[in-house]
């Protein structure tokens, strides 16, 4: 199974589209290497802007470019974009309604060994609280490419979070991507697992294992966290009566919170939010930290059985 980082797929797609639309720009803050954008910078230097290590200026400049008809794609660290430059994102991008696409790279625990300063585990909560900005986390390289093809057609502010490491494919080449429209990857009737980003793969693996144990599990890829596909959530609550969410984010304010807000106001059912608890996450390689916090197929299987039992 191919393992390619989503950011690399995004770069390839942007190079392709920037060759057609000369207003498409990529901006980095000494982050072109980490963002896999060196190729863009060397192939299309006239559409590439380096601003140095200055995230506030990065976002402000992108807003000014967008206000002048350009279509800027920022590629910088999720940990810093979502904190250091959040006021620029709120005022210059979301409030001013400028056509800026913000790609938060090395999201979640990508920099697991580097500590809380480099963990990006609050970005979704922060972005989700700001009006007029969409929030997307693609699952694999195919979805990443479809996402970019969709994003170049809209003028709205969007935050996209991707991880640093290669991810396993979820889709074969053909995936549908519509902003705000979740994808039901596997159908099932006992419980629904809702995930985003690279944890869609984990959700699928969990469902396959649960099936072997006689539990029918629905898997939903919630690639767009805002605007949220509320209908698919309500339907899952009605039809499967149990929901588990799985995400590489703080338990406060991320996908699980977003889903819970819908469930509790429409069709309350037992839920379990699997995420990073409200503490400075331990350091370690991403896979080690995931394991520690129960972000693994075996842990999801265990939580599923627990939820079914306690609510049954």
């Amino acid at each position, binding site marked *: 199974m191919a393992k390619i980082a989503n950011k690399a797929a995004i770069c390839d797609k942007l190079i392709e589209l920037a060759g057609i639309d000369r207003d498409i720009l990529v901006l980095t803050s000494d982050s072109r290497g980490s963002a896999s954008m060196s190729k863009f910078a060397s192939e299309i230097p*006239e559409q590439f802007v380096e601003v140095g290590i200055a995230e*506030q200026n990065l976002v402000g*400049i992108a807003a000014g*470019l967008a*206000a*002048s008809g*350009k279509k800027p794609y920022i590629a910088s660290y999720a940990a810093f974009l979502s904190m250091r430059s959040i*006021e620029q994102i709120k*005022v210059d991008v979301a409030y001013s309604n400028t056509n800026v696409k913000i790609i938060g790279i090395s999201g979640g625990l990508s920099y697991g060994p580097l500590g809380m300063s480099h963990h990006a585990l609050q970005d979704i909560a922060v972005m989700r609280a700001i009006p007029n900005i969409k929030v997307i986390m693609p699952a694999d390289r195919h979805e990443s490419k479809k996402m970019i093809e969709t994003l170049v057609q809209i003028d709205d502010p969007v935050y996209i979070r991707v991880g640093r490491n290669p991810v396993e494919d979820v889709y074969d080449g053909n995936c549908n991507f519509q902003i705000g429209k979740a994808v039901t990857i596997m159908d099932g009737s006992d419980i629904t697992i809702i995930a985003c980003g690279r944890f869609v793969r984990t959700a699928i693996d969990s469902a396959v294992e649960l099936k072997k144990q006689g539990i029918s599990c629905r898997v939903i890829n919630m690639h767009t966290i805002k605007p949220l596909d509320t209908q698919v959530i309500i339907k899952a609550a009605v039809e499967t009566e149990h929901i588990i969410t799985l995400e590489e984010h703080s338990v406060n304010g991320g996908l699980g919170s977003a889903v819970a807000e819908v469930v509790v106001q429409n069709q309350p059912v037992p839920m379990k939010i699997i995420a990073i608890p409200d503490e400075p996450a331990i350091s370690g390689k991403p896979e080690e930290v995931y394991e520690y916090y129960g972000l693994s197929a075996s842990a999801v299987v265990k939580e599923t059985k627990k939820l079914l039992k306690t609510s049954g």
Partner: protein
Amino acid sequence: MLDKQLLAEKAAQIRIDLLEMIYNAGMGHTGSSLSNTDILTTLYYSVMNVNPNEPNWEDRDRFVLSKGHAVESYYCILADLGFIDKDELTTFCQYQSRLIGHPNNKVPGVEMNTGALGHGLSVAVGMAKAAKMDKRDYRVFVLMGDGEQAEGSIWEASMSAAHFGLDNLIGIIDRNRLQITGSTEEVMALEPLAEKWKSFGWQVVEVDGHDFQQLRETLSSIPVEKGRPTLVVANTVKGKGVSFSENNPTWHHHVPSEDELNRAIQELKPFAGADNNG
């Protein structure tokens, strides 16, 4: 393009308009707006290429009010030029008005929403960079406060403007030496301010921010040096034009009483041209 005398008359009229607007609204940044009125009047009536009938004209000169709280003079000028209806000024800061207390780009003629300090210069850098990329001749003017200079993001933007060689970018500092707490030098010393900007790679020019001839000559003859952005330190008086608000930090957002409004108008009217003497 107005001559010096007409600019002075126009500025006096804008001051009357903004004082009335603030009085009606019951709120506003009076001292800050009076401070920048002459700079904005010079820009809009004798320097910038803008078209009220086509506010989004691609080759227009851009203006960004980075010190967004001083929005009153800006709205009054946009109304006087016909970007918006003059009657709309009575809605300033009122329920559901688009004339909110900081620049709002839903208002024709306003490029960007500002208000949080230290944002405008970065945005202006983006606009000036876009002009260079598209080989367009428009200029980008950004007005900053002096208290605002303490924001670190200003210096990120300053560094990048010089790095990109943006000679189509003109930063103006409304140097009135007062911020809400008091003297800028006591709150957080800025001097030597011109030297700071020079060392960041900018051409720096100092002017009397209430001298229309100096303002017009300086702002019209930019770039001072090809390949470099220009910074104009406009030495101003906070609360300018009304004897009892000048240099008075409490007027930063003081709303005039009816008596103060009448006295202010009495002081300004003799300077405000024929249209306003009636």
